[in-house]
């Protein structure tokens, strides 16, 4: 375990937690969705660091990719009732 990976991990962790906080705090729903996708993406990178390439691929493809698309699909169809009041 090199220092680099640890520092990278730390940064990634902080970033993902930050993104998560943004996702649940931000007023705009699209931004929230994107932030959640970002959390997923950062997690995928972490997975690589954690020696789990399979998982990383899946998380990237499914967690941050498809899921985000799904959200936007739905978001597009619920415009109006979607956001915070």
């Amino acid at each position, binding site marked *: *375990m090199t220092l680099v*990976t*640890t520092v990278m*991990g*730390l940064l990634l*962790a902080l970033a*993902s*937690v930050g993104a*998560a*906080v943004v*996702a*649940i705090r931000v007023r705009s*729903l699209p931004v*929230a*969705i994107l932030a*959640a996708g970002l*959390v*997923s993406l950062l*997690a995928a990178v*972490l*997975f690589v*660091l*954690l*020696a*789990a*390439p*399979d*998982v990383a691929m*899946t*998380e990237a493809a*499914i*967690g941050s990719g*498809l*899921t985000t698309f*799904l*959200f936007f*699909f*739905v*978001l597009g*169809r*619920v415009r*109006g*009732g*979607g*956001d*915070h*009041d």
Partner: protein
Amino acid sequence: MTLVTLAIATGFALVLIGLLGALTDRNILRMIVAFTIANTGVNLVLIGVGMLPGRTAPILDEAVSVAQAAARIVDPVPQALVLTAIVIGLGVTALMLAYALRLHQTRHSLDIRTFTELKW
């Protein structure tokens, strides 16, 4: 702090943040978003638990021969589990989204408080 504990701690933090969002935000879509964050956190925890510091991915190739495998690779089982969990998480998310869509179609609202006609 090692990478492992870091991963687990981050995972737990994401779970808690996700749950906080899911349990306090009234907007259905945002609840779902929050749940995906929590799910990601869980996945992170799982992988973190399966991680053995300083080891490599559980793939046998030139770098890792069968004979060395036991000493070189991380625990593959959590990874397999997480793969499954991710897909299942997507399934549930998709389902919830479909529900959200339909709920919105019926009431033109995404406020969870709208859907309390069944109670008591």
